[in-house]
């Protein structure tokens, strides 16, 4: 069958930010779906969002409430959400209570009542909340499976997209014949992770289209359910080919050490202990980008945006004006129960909003601390997904990371995340001539040349300033306790190896 012979399945917006991406662009029209999960997991809210997103007076939504939550209280609470539009009631959305039929009659009567209302209203969307509470009489002529089978057949014929909402525990998922009838099965989970609540959803089944597999974090705010796709909504975006362009730090000597600057689309890690100037370097990187017309995002976790901007001012860098001009966003992300995906979604939203070309994450330790404890185990994996997604669309990322200063070792990062980065710049203290001085070295530039020099630098009122020539008269610099040698200066000899020569 050729592509043009195939029936086109329309996709309906879910009304849940992030969920369309997860279900492959929207829910299939006329599909028969089950939203399952424990009480309080957000099933009703999710169904309401779909209803409000799709119901019209011409093709309304019928929302059948059964036993369980009182309809009046349900509306009392649901109207607090921003998606709840009272003007849609009662023409576009009708709530119909079936509790009396369920209490007094059997499932056959319930089906008859639903059929009658559907034939009368010609709805585009039908919700039964909660279908599981309908099974009250074991001696009923119709069991739940038959009821659902017949309901599915009927509603599909009447061109309605349907949601059945049911309270199910995790272990009920297997071998449940109810679920075989459904075209779509969305499972909502809510678990306690130490002191935080973690909500995750999974599209266990969705006929007719690809969905993003795995568990996706979601949150319920005053805007309703918001889902965070594990792919951050960037699966459909084409990866940009490397441009080869070099981005300047605004520090000529450092750019030279990097063979002209950081390659556009690279992920750079600046590692060093407290006070070595990681944030200063990051600020100079973002400020230079803005100076060159490249919008930037700074995600800070350890200080407030005002303080961050003030510190930049003390270095002669203006971060206030670009914020007002929409060229720079400083994100402060510090709630302690953030999921890693929603934190990253905030960053992605900001990147996409201003078309950022440079992103600073200051710092990875702060980022990790801002997360709910349950998500910290996934931190590296999530970071990998975000870096991969962002660098793929040409955003250059600079992350800072604090490493323990050891005078016997030279670790790049305590997080073992160096595999996530293309380039690593290491800052450290070194004891020379009775002073605690600072040195900088480019550890790695993936696929590119870079200086191997160890350079001394200072943090001045102008930011990071790299001093003189490389420290050629010392051995063991990276140990932090170098030994002075009387060897002649070998700077020129070493630089010939790299092809990056600095004679300043």
């Amino acid at each position, binding site marked *: 069958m050729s592509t043009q012979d195939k029936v086109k399945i329309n996709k309906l917006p879910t009304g849940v930010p992030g969920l369309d991406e997860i279900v492959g662009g929207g829910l299939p029209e006329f599909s028969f779906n089950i939203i399952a999960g424990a009480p309080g997991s957000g099933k009703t809210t999710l169904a309401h969002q779909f209803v409000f997103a799709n119901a019209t007076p011409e093709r309304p939504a019928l929302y059948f409430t059964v036993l369980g939550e009182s309809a*009046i209280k349900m509306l009392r609470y649901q109207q607090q959400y921003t998606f709840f539009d*009272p003007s849609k009631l009662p023409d576009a959305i009708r709530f119909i*209570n079936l509790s009396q039929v369920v209490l007094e009659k059997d499932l056959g009567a319930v089906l008859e009542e639903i059929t009658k209302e559907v034939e009368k209203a010609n709805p585009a969307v039908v919700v039964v909340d909660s279908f599981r509470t309908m099974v009250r009489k074991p001696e009923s002529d119709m069991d739940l499976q038959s009821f659902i089978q017949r309901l599915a057949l009927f509603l599909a014929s009447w061109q309605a997209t349907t949601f059945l909402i049911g309270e199910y525990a995790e272990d009920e998922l297997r071998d449940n014949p109810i679920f075989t009838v459904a075209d779509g099965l969305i499972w909502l989970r809510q678990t306690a992770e130490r002191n935080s609540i973690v909500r995750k959803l999974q599209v266990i089944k969705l006929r007719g289209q690809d969905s993003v597999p795995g568990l996706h974090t979601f949150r319920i705010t005053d805007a309703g359910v918001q889902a965070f796709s594990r792919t951050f909504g960037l699966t459909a975006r084409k990866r940009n080919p490397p441009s080869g362009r070099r981005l300047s730090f605004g520090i000529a000597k450092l750019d030279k050490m990097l063979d002209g600057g950081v390659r556009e689309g690279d992920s750079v890690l600046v590692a060093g202990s407290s006070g070595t100037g990681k944030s200063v370097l990051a600020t100079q990187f973002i400020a230079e980008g803005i100076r060159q017309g490249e919008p930037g995002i700074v995600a800070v976790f350890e200080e407030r945006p005002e303080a961050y901007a003030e510190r930049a001012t003390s270095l002669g860098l203006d971060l206030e004006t670009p914020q007002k001009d929409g060229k720079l966003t400083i994100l402060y992300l510090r709630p302690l129960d953030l999921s890693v995906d929603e934190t990253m979604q905030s960053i992605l939203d900001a990147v996409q909003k201003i078309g950022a070309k440079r992103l600073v994450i200051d710092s990875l330790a702060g980022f990790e601390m801002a997360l709910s404890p349950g998500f910290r185990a996934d931190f590296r994996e999530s970071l990998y997904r975000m870096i991969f997604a962002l660098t793929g669309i040409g955003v250059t990322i600079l992350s800072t990371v604090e490493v323990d200063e050891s005078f016997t070792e030279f670790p790049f990062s305590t997080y073992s995340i160096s595999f996530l980065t293309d380039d690593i710049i290491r800052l450290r203290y070194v004891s020379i001539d009775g002073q605690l001085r600072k040195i900088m070295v480019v550890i790695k530039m993936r696929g590119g040349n870079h200086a191997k020099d160890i350079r001394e630098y200072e943090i001045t009122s102008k930011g990071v300033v790299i001093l003189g020539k490389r420290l050629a008269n010392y051995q063991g610099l990276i140990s932090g306790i170098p030994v002075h040698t009387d060897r002649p200066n070998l700077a020129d000899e070493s630089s010939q190896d790299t092809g990056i020569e600095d004679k300043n």
Partner: protein
Amino acid sequence: MRDLAHRLLVYEAGAGNASEPPEHPAIRVYEKLRQSLGEFVGVAGFQSLASRALTLARPEVPSLSAAQVAADGSLEGLREIEIRFDMGKDSATDGEIILIARLLGLLRIFLGEALTLRLLRNAWPAEVFDDRNLEHGRKA
């Protein structure tokens, strides 16, 4: 709420069909509320609301002590009270206004003004509401 209750009663007083046996406007308003809200909150849900409204109205209208809400949500014993409701006059009495106002008041407490009006518009034409502010009984 009293103002809206009064408007509904006045509307029903004028909307009675001459060919049908006369029915008190308060009963017609109550029955319309039972029908339209019953679909949404269920029979038991409406019965609970109506019982609460009746309880709240009784101290102000002692004659309502003879009335009670049946299991299906209908108001029993109202016919006996009708005489005291001054049946046949165009203007509604305080007693009937208070009963309906208490019921509407409960809806507003639970659902808020906007949603209450939306639901009532299912049962009465828009002109009855006439952009009225429920809280103050004045035009917005």
